[in-house]
């Protein structure tokens, strides 16, 4: 197993039939996925759906109730200590020592990973350079803004040059500029072959990933590249078309749109309505029908499904299945 990891063969993570129960509650229910080396894997799902639990299972913080998983070619059941030496982890709230400076935080984590002084010094220099932390080096972590704390936390998680990094909601509570900068950095690192396992519930971030999976109530209900998910039959049923209708009167327009036969579903999106219509429905005719009802319509144009559409469709479908099963 260890040699497979060193040769760089095999996936970064492979999870088969992962189950984790807390008493009667099944937090992770038969979860399967594979993350290839060098991917940015987006792990999405609502709060409480089991994202953090999966990370804890993969890093050996929680024992599996059933199933098996390999991380960097090592078995989580038997080699969790070796796994922890090879992966980096950045927790939800950037767990830094507020009363230590940026430099001291880096020193501490470097020593925890047992880096020799010469290598530690080199790595700290590299991390400070990469994350532009130099001006803040002697500042207390408590005095950093959210974006800088996040860079420091990422730096701490990368000191020991892990080939796989788990980032648990790395952009929660961070301003948009810092979010953009973090993603630029992730792409750069990913270019060097580092694998990222990123949880988020920002859909724009999901769009940036090479590979996404969506977990809902402990089960994975979607897994693939963002493009392959957009084309799923559940999302884009055969014989349907997704359109965007721009209008200044979104609320009134939505009410009428839902009554028009041929429109299967409709939701408000800012100053427009996204609707799923039968593909033989003429777009001009749709526009006429709305205008006839006294609604000012701007444009009506075809639209590719966004990942948000994908997850909303899949969640609704799954929810309906759960309710049917219960009834």
């Amino acid at each position, binding site marked *: 197993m260890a040699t497979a990891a060193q040769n760089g063969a095999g996936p970064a993570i492979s999870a088969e039939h992962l189950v984790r129960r807390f008493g009667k509650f099944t937090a992770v229910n038969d979860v399967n996925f594979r993350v290839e080396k060098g991917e940015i894997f987006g792990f999405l799902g609502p709060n409480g759906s089991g994202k953090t639990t999966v990370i804890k299972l993969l890093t050996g913080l929680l*024992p599996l109730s059933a199933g098996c998983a390999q991380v960097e070619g090592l078995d989580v059941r038997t080699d969790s200590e070796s796994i*922890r030496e090879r*992966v980096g982890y950045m*927790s939800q*709230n950037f767990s830094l020592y507020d009363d230590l400076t940026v430099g001291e935080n880096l020193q501490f984590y470097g020593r925890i990973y047992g880096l020799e002084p010469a290598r530690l010094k080199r790595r700290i220099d590299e991390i400070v350079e990469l994350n532009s932390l130099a001006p803040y080096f002697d500042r207390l972590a408590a005095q950093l803004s959210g974006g800088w704390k996040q860079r420091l936390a990422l730096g701490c998680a990368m000191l020991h040059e892990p080939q796989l990094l788990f980032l648990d909601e790395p952009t929660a509570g961070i301003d948009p500029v810092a979010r953009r900068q973090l993603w630029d950095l992730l792409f750069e690192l990913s270019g060097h072959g580092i694998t990222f396992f990123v949880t988020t519930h920002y859909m724009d971030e999901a769009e940036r990933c090479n590979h996404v999976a969506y977990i809902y109530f402990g089960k994975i209900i979607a897994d693939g590249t963002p493009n392959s998910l957009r084309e799923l039959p559940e999302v884009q049923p055969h014989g349907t078309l997704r359109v965007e209708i721009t209008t200044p009167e979104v609320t009134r327009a939505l009410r009428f749109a839902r009554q028009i036969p041929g429109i299967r579903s409709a939701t408000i999106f800012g100053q427009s309505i996204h609707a799923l219509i039968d593909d033989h429905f003429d777009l001009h005719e749709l526009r006429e029908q709305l205008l006839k009802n006294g609604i000012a319509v701007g444009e009506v144009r075809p639209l590719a499904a966004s990942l948000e559409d994908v997850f909303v469709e899949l969640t609704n479908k799954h929810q309906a299945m759960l309710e049917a099963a219960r009834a």
Partner: protein
Amino acid sequence: MRNLFRGFGAVFYKEVLHVRRDFGTLFFSLIIPLLQMVLLGFGIDTNIRQINTIVYNADGRRESRELIDRLRNSDTFHVIRYVDSDADLNDAIIAGRARVGVKIPVDYSDRLLHQMSAQVLVLIDGSDSSVAGQAVNVTTSIGLDESLRRVLQDRSTFAVEMRPKLLFNPDSRSPNFFLPGLTAILLLNVTTFLTAFSIVREKERGTLEQLFVTPVRPMGLLLGKLLPYLGIGFFELSLILTFMRFVFRVPIHGNVILLAILSLPYLFVSLSLGILISSKANTHAQAMQLAFLTILPSVFFSGYIFPRETMPAFFYALSYLVPATYFINITRGVILRGAGIAHLWTDGLALFTMGAVLLILAARRFQKKVIMA
């Protein structure tokens, strides 16, 4: 007027909910005063009884045995052992095993039979002033009583003379008595409290979880936490001793180096206790309450204020589980009685054992959170 109390109902409702949710805090705040009351009510009897007493009967004849019976029947003394030499008598008191040593001279019966006055030497450990006072009073009155009885029976004009001799703290100065014991209580503050808080703070901030994802081992984590505070505790001890010696002028009869060495196992126990508390508590407030719970027995059951001899059997047995009991015997032993390693090694060993057990328990509790390969 209505506006003056605006929001009262809502805030009241919310507070009731808080209290119900955080039942643990309420439970502790209510139970601690109750516990204190039970401890003070049952555990502490200001009438000093059953003082551990050791007897060297060099005479051994009927008259001497009668005197010993009188001592035993007094309820004040509890004869735990008979020895055959002055050295053994002294040792037992220096080691803290006995508070009172009674020596009946070899010619006790002879002198009484020859109508002469007989003297009995009573050595009293003065390091506990309340015990010492009671012991002096009771021995003197037993001597008087025995004399009176003999005067009436034999018409003898000579009496038994009890000669109490206060050892170690002849002036019965209270700083001499209180300060060595206080050392044990003060050290708990910088050891148990500080370690417990330092780990709970990491729990609250989430850094502990972050550490668990690194290859750090529970023992590495715990010892790394423990040693700096051991240093702080040791520094605190030096400060306390310096103050005690030069400000309060308590003479140190024994070897200070020995005291320093024997304080290490005590610091080890208190630190391990702090770690154990932090493995249980998730918030600063919980850690505070649990730590406070350890302070109580250290004050009341260690013999610091109330002599252990006066406690009912259950609490007396409990006092053996309180680390401060051993350390107070060590501090009073070295400082007041000039005790050496031969007298105190058992206390040191008891503390070290407790510390090891607590640390292993704490490490196991942490281990459960980090499953090891």
